[in-house]
């Protein structure tokens, strides 16, 4: 009880924190179309941006705080929040009631959202930077023909990250097969999302990366079940701490994040396996529920500014589809095979597509089965347990009533 009294003190201490703000380094706005950017100034507008975790330059470690720079330039307040998978973004939008103005999903999810009419078409005349910036290869993508709904933000590949001090030096890590190697049992991590995990299994089996039939999914599930006892954990972004801290020797993840990890721990290396892999594009879209479409387009345009794009790319480590940003990069980065691999390797990589609903549902089911597969329970067990509880309740209750009736109050 008394701990509660002290709350007032805690609050009193906390409130002044809110009044203090610090300023990150200033940005150079010369070379930007100030009339265009400042037309909403002083109107008290705000913009809800929903992005992946740590997927923007946020001012930490001396980088540019992109959102703050946008606020200072345009006078529009950015309300920024993050998601951790495409599917949770989809769930949040489907649930409704949140009114995001700008989202950054991946390719296959954009296709799904277009199909389910969850996105607003963009007005490219409001995004003047689009024309001169985006590389031809990333324009007019298969998931969004003619860029009607999306402007690419980053791209990258999926590959194996490994700790050179923890793998056998005679092993040349170049195949997904190492993720099934008993030598590294207990030292490997795996994607904890069905799409990427099944993609790797498909590549191991020599299938295309997108499931074509339930049989393929069954075969892949078997393969993943074989792998499960060898794994330390299924992870998503937890991988950052685990790989840089030397907790695991081997794990599949996104190239851009591998770059970030390799900066923190020079022992790490990255390779796209020879069986081929997944290539992805993350792109900026405006969801149907958006309240501020023009502001969102302004934000997209701002993100395409070379200086802003450069800050983002340097911070998050992914590859840029923006030519004007690419030109600003150091030669060392331009020639980095992790971030900008050669054409031959890119040709071995496939994009995910939006699966037909029955296959997608089947994949979900198989995925849950995989995650709970080490215990074999009959399906009947659960109804039986429930039934047992009901019987126990009733019999105990009757027993008690009878006992009470037999001995009236003394």
């Amino acid at each position, binding site marked *: 009880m008394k701990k509660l009294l002290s709350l007032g003190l805690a609050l009193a201490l906390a409130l002044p924190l809110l009044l203090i703000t610090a300023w990150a380094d200033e940005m150079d706005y010369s070379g930007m179309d100030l009339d265009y950017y400042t037309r909403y100034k002083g109107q008290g507008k705000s913009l809800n941006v929903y992005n992946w975790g740590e997927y923007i330059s946020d001012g930490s470690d001396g980088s540019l705080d992109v959102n703050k720079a946008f606020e200072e330039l345009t006078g529009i307040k950015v309300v920024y929040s993050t998601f951790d998978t495409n599917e949770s973004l989809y769930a949040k939008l489907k649930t409704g009631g949140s009114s995001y103005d700008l989202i950054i999903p991946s390719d296959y999810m954009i296709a799904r959202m277009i199909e389910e009419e969850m996105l607003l078409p963009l007005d490219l005349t409001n995004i003047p930077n689009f024309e001169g910036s985006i590389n031809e290869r990333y324009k007019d993508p298969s998931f969004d023909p003619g860029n009607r709904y999306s402007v690419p933000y980053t791209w990258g590949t999926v590959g194996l990250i490994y700790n050179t001090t923890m793998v056998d030096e005679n092993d040349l890590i170049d195949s997904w097969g190492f993720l099934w190697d008993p030598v590294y049992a207990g030292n490997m991590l795996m994607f904890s999302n069905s799409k990427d995990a099944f993609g790797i299994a498909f590549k191991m089996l020599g299938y295309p990366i997108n499931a074509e039939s339930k049989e393929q999914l069954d075969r892949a599930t078997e393969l993943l079940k074989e792998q499960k006892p060898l794994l330390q954990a299924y992870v998503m972004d937890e991988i950052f701490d685990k790989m840089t801290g030397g907790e695991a020797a081997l794990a599949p993840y996104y190239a851009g994040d591998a770059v970030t990890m390799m900066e923190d721990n020079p022992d790490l290396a990255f390779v796209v396996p020879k069986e081929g892999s997944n290539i992805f594009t993350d792109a900026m879209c405006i969801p149907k529920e958006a309240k501020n479409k023009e502001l969102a387009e302004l934000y997209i345009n701002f993100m395409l500014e070379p200086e802003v794009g450069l800050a983002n790319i340097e911070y998050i480590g992914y590859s840029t589809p923006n030519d004007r940003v690419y030109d600003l990069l150091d030669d060392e980065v331009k020639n980095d095979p992790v971030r900008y691999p050669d054409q031959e390797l890119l040709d071995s990589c496939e994009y995910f597509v939006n699966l037909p609903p029955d296959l997608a549902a089947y994949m979900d089911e198989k995925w849950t089965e995989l995650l709970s597969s080490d215990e074999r329970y009959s399906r009947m067990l*659960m109804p039986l347990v429930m039934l047992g509880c009901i019987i126990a309740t009733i019999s105990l209750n009757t027993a008690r009533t009878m006992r009470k009736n037999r001995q009236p109050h003394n």
Partner: protein
Amino acid sequence: MKFRHAALPYMIWSSVFVLVPLGLVAVFAFTTGDGAFTIDNIARVSNYTPVFMRSVWLAILATAICLAIGYPLAYLMSRMNGVRQRTMVMLIMLPMWINFLLRTYAWMTLLENNGVINSLLRLVGLGPVRMINTQGAVVLGMIYNYLPFMILPLYSIMTKIDDRVIEAAQDLGANPFQVFSRVIFPLSVPGISTGVTMVFVPAISTFIISRMLGGGSNMLIGDLIDAQFLGNAYNPNLGAAISMVLMVFILLVMSIFNQFDDSEDREGLLI
């Protein structure tokens, strides 16, 4: 006194925000995405029997261990003098002022292969012990987070046990075991019942703890529900069905438990 109508606003409030939502869970559980009636969702819940059984088993384990740790401590606390009692209660509540996610996160640092505990073990020449990403770690997380909910109700019941009752039993020739089984234990049953409820319910429905400490492969029923609503497998109807089954199961378990507790008020429920 004529204040009967004062409860009206609250009755309306809890109808709209407690009963109607629970009704909606049932409605969603028995409909498809298009609103047509179906029992398919409920039938599909049995596909997740392994997840369900694992949650039940780990929650029972965590509750039992909490009871085993908390019971002696609560008893020792209740026999201390006033100042010490207060200090102990304070010490047990204090950790709750730090968000449970952060404390669980700190456990990750402790349990990892290169974590604090393994580093210490290495210093004394013991090999690394695999602790994180196991079911044991998930149970540990549950025990850690819910132990105060066991200790505090037990303690508040046990302070009401008069020292003289125990002395009387001793004077009448009861040995320590008899004192416990005939006097202390029966008097502490309401506290046990409350404590077990307050640990078991959150433990069986927890999510995120399993993901942080269990390495993703120790999925619990809470994770499953989360995945259907805001996670990877968007399907609110199935999620509602799983929630309903969970709720019914907990109600059944609690009603079984209440059979052993004759007291009218749930004493000690409030910390």
